[in-house]
């Protein structure tokens, strides 16, 4: 999995993978829950990706301390992203303002 993908889980819940990070060999995602017709919602989760054979699993992080830690990691990344946008290092292809 990589950020920028929309995944569907076994219970038919859909998530947009927004950011990722590797920590001590674990791959984590910050994801926004989508409605069935893929509209964004105000819910989000932290996932750890695991691969078993040909199957990929997303494990929702339930531990509060780890969640807090991931929040710090992603927030820092977000701030860096904001700086990159401001510096012009990140641009959007579509320039439509309407």
């Amino acid at each position, binding site marked *: *999995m990589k950020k*920028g*993908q*929309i*995944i*569907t*889980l*076994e*219970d038919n819940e859909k998530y*947009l*993978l*927004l*950011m990722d990070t590797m*920590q*001590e060999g*674990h791959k984590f995602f*910050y994801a*926004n*829950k*989508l409605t069935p017709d*893929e*509209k*964004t*919602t*105000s*819910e*989000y989760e932290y996932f*750890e990706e*695991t691969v078993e054979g040909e*199957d*990929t*699993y*997303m*494990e*929702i*992080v*339930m*531990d509060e*301390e*780890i969640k*807090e*830690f991931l929040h*710090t990691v*992603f*927030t*820092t990344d*977000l*701030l860096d992203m*904001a*700086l990159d*946008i*401001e*510096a012009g290092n990140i641009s*959007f*292809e*579509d*320039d*439509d*303002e*309407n």
Partner: protein
Amino acid sequence: MLTFEIEELRKTLEKYEATDKLDLLVTKANELNDLIYSAGYTGVIENPIITYVNNYAKYCVIALEHFKLTREIKDLAKKKEENPEDQTIDGKISHVQASLDLAMEGLTKYKGNMEKSKEYINSTIAEQPDKKDQATVKLVEIETLCSQIGHEFNKKPSPEKMTHEELLIAYKNLLDENEELKLQNDSINARLEALEAKQKAGDEKKNQSILSKLKNGFKKVKKKVVAVKDFTVEFVKDKAVPYIKNHKKEAIIAAVALAGIVGSCVVYGTPLAIPARIVSSMWGPLHNIGLGGALHSINDFLIGKLGAGNFDLASGLWTIGSKAVNNMNMLEVVLGNMAGAAVLAGAGYGLFKGGKRLIKWAKKRVKDHKKEEPESLPPAYNFETLTDEELENKISELEAILDSGEIPSEYKDLSLEQIEELFNIAAGEQEYRQNLNNPINDKDNFESLNKRSCKKAIRKLNKLIKKWTDKTEPQEIDINGEYFMINNVDEAKQLYDEISYIYELKFGGRTR
């Protein structure tokens, strides 16, 4: 040409290189004097405008003396504290105190004289309807010039114009200030070091715990991925942006969260490098696309309501409840409470590529936020449904009530304060409609304010000045959609004077 007893004030103003204002004051005073005499002035005081200006000049000179004496007595008190046995200091203190009392008496006397002469001028003006406007403008000009001269004394006098004695005092004051700053700096550094040490110890302990969990496992809920597809720019356009349109509050919160929160870190002086770096990069673009005002109000909203945080000036830390947090935690709290990072991504997209839309959202949102404030107001006043003409009539009606202070029967259930809120909401609606066609105004230029915006600003400032009692923190005020930080009551008064002056010059009539 009349003569004025202003030489002492002129000498003082020379040090501040501000005698031009005094010359202008004399010219305007002469003009007003001619005007009120040609209008048939027969008051008890001869030449009331001379009395006014002369008393103001004396008032200024004594006010400066009073300031110097206050400084002197403070120095003496400090010396006495260091040398409690020194009896000579007591004598000096008594002497300075007596001079201070005398100066205070003088201030009261000259202020009273000014008020009295102004009453005579006003009564003459009121009796002459054909010259009323002209005379009112001149009186306002004179008052404004007096006020501006008063502000000159807040500046530092030109060293070349200072006497040897004054230079020595200025030098001594600088040394004192330097000493105080050094002490403050030492205290802040010590506190900062202690806090950093404490935070470091806490962080290390926490890091060990997280590391152990990452190695040994932690609580999770496993779900299989059954389908994957790529996210595209169209997704932002088709899904995230429509979401933002329907969730304007969250969108704006998201858009300004970064800059707003880190902005507050800088505004309130929290010493962290990252927020300072971010705000310096984000602040400009946000202001440029018209989100400056929204940024301030939403920043307050975020800190006050979402994060429920307070900034403790003593410790230099944010607190949520009784828990101290650093800036990064604060940002996390906010991000954790808002509508998810997809909104941030979408808002980022809108922020940098769709500025115009966000300007409208921001303005609308700020307006809506204001509408939500007066909870006690009856819901019948929905100005959005009125036509432009009906809205204009409604505003005029409310304005007339506020001017007269008399509440007609149809508004009998409302207080004057609630009527003022209604007026602000209606005027805000009108402003919003006008701004729809002109989203970016030159709001720094008060001269471009229309009559209603001027009056609205004057009312707000008047309210702020009246309520400014023990406020020690800067207060925020919006004027025609632009937000200003007012650091003290004098600044509020200065802004009030500036806008009143513009109002009176442009639209006539008194505002005070």
